[in-house]
């Protein structure tokens, strides 16, 4: 018989049954560590939530006096020291919509290609690496690219179009990355099942892969809406201006090649460039920006929950 390579561990001390389940010194110490760990994690969570709540409450309290329908539908006036936010609000809506009209289809379709069609090769590896890295590039870099490529080279000048395209370039890699992730979450077994009935790749994508990843794809796209709405740097050099009067209440007030106002830029100007701005005006602008971002994110969550409830495997 071969030697025993795996000898049984020495048997623990035999304890009498009435002592068997009582805490020992060691188990009391473990319980203490457990309590400390839980306490630390909880404290950190609290530390994270508190400032968030404070910021939101503070902003709303400060902005309360000015928040009214009129605030939304009137242009800034008296050298930015009075009036509302109509021009910047409309500008932000314009650039967000136009930039997503460009980046969402390109990004989603490119991600489908990379995830469903492209074979693993050095070329696709480089593309994937580039996408991930581009997603992490600071927005000011995208801004400079936008100035060079759209404002000067493509001769769009500083305009809604140039700024939107710059934002599109900025959001594109993130949309590609999040879409790829959503597609990757669809089990391979579903694709195999389709292929083995003779479905082409497109039939597989159309019939099974997209319906089961659409919630993740949309979430990724919508989150980029709030990012595009909140960025200042990319639009600062590519078309956003200090002031531009447009007709109040007219949703088609900006042309594609017009300069425009935007909320994020407006807030920056109010708080740094103009002396004597009533506090409520600044905070009102901030609340609208925050509210818009929160609403868009909430929409993303609702949409995801709704679409998830229809996909179950």
């Amino acid at each position, binding site marked *: 018989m071969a030697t025993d390579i795996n000898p049984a561990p020495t048997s623990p001390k035999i304890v009498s049954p009435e002592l068997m389940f009582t805490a020992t010194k060691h188990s009391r110490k473990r319980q203490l560590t457990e309590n400390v760990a839980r306490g630390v994690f909880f404290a950190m969570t609290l530390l994270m939530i508190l400032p968030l709540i404070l910021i939101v409450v503070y902003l709303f309290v400060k902005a309360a006096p000015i928040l009214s329908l009129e605030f939304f539908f009137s242009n800034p006036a008296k050298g930015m020291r009075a009036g509302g936010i109509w021009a910047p609000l409309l500008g932000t809506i314009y650039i967000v919509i136009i930039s997503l009209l460009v980046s969402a289809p390109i990004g989603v379709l490119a991600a489908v290609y990379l995830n469903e069609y492209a*074979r*693993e090769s050095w070329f696709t590896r480089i593309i994937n690496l580039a996408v991930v890295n581009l997603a992490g590039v600071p927005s000011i870099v995208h801004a400079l690219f936008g100035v060079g490529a759209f404002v000067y080279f493509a001769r769009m000048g500083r305009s809604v179009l140039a700024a939107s395209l710059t934002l599109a370039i900025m959001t594109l890699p993130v949309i590609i990355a999040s879409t790829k992730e959503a597609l990757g979450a669809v*089990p391979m*077994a*579903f694709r*195999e*099942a*389709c*292929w*083995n*009935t*003779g*479905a*082409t790749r497109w*039939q597989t994508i159309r*019939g*099974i892969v997209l319906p*089961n990843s659409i919630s993740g794809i949309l979430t990724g796209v919508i989150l980029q809406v709030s990012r595009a709405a909140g960025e200042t740097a990319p639009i600062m050099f590519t078309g956003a201006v200090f002031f531009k009067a447009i007709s109040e209440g007219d949703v088609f007030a900006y042309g594609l090649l017009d300069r425009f106002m935007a909320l994020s830029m407006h807030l920056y100007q109010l708080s740094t460039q103009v002396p004597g701005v009533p506090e409520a005006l600044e905070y009102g602008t901030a609340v609208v920006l925050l509210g818009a971002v929160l609403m868009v994110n909430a929409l993303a969550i609702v949409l995801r929950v709704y679409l998830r409830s229809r*996909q*179950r*495997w």
Partner: protein
Amino acid sequence: MSPDKKQSKSYSVETRQLNLWYGDFQALINVSVKVVDGLITGLIGPSGCGKTTLLRCFNRVNERYGNVTTTGEVEILGKNIYDADVSLPELRKNVGMVFQRPNPLPISVYENIIFGLRVHSERRIRKRSDTDNIVETALREVHLWDDLKDQLKVKATTLQLEQQQKLCIARLLPLKPRVILMDEPCSALDAKGTRTVEELMLELAGQYTILIVTHNMAQARRVSNECIFMLLGEIIEHSHTEDLFLTPQNSKTADYIEGRYG
């Protein structure tokens, strides 16, 4: 069928000098094998010996898994499927596959059954009464009709595993395949599920040529008419199942079926 033809066996799958590489790794080495039409042929061998790879060659679905190089010939019903004029969708329609883990699509039972037809029909919408019949026939063939006739709208992924696997078999039938490839179809099922799927296979044999990869040698003995033993990408032995298990010609086969490795 003329008596002549009955004498000489007809083969539905035939490979000649089939070699296959995943990148630099050679997974199949000079595989030449003939699979008799209408019978159940078992593929046995230790993990990683190329059983599944060989199976996947028969509908060329291997090519969807990345860097694959194939040389040699695979004839299905006398036609080399590596010829340039072979359409992959048509090939896969005729050579269906059942997987180790049941993989019904995340759509209703009804839609699962007619998924293949929808994929292959030019007209977008078929008549409802037609598809109703097709679904009923397919489910009856796999003995699921009585269980599922009131649950046709249920999402197939919520069924029991055994029902899912039978559904995956039923899903192939409306396409009228000639060959059904089964990659360890029972390994995710319990004893009862295994028995019913095996019974189903025995009923389907004759209409379809069935190739089954299995790790379960008792299963290979129960269901297969012929058996192929593979080792490290090569065919070691191919004969009637009974002969292979009772009087193996190769000592490696004997070692494997007696459980000395694998």
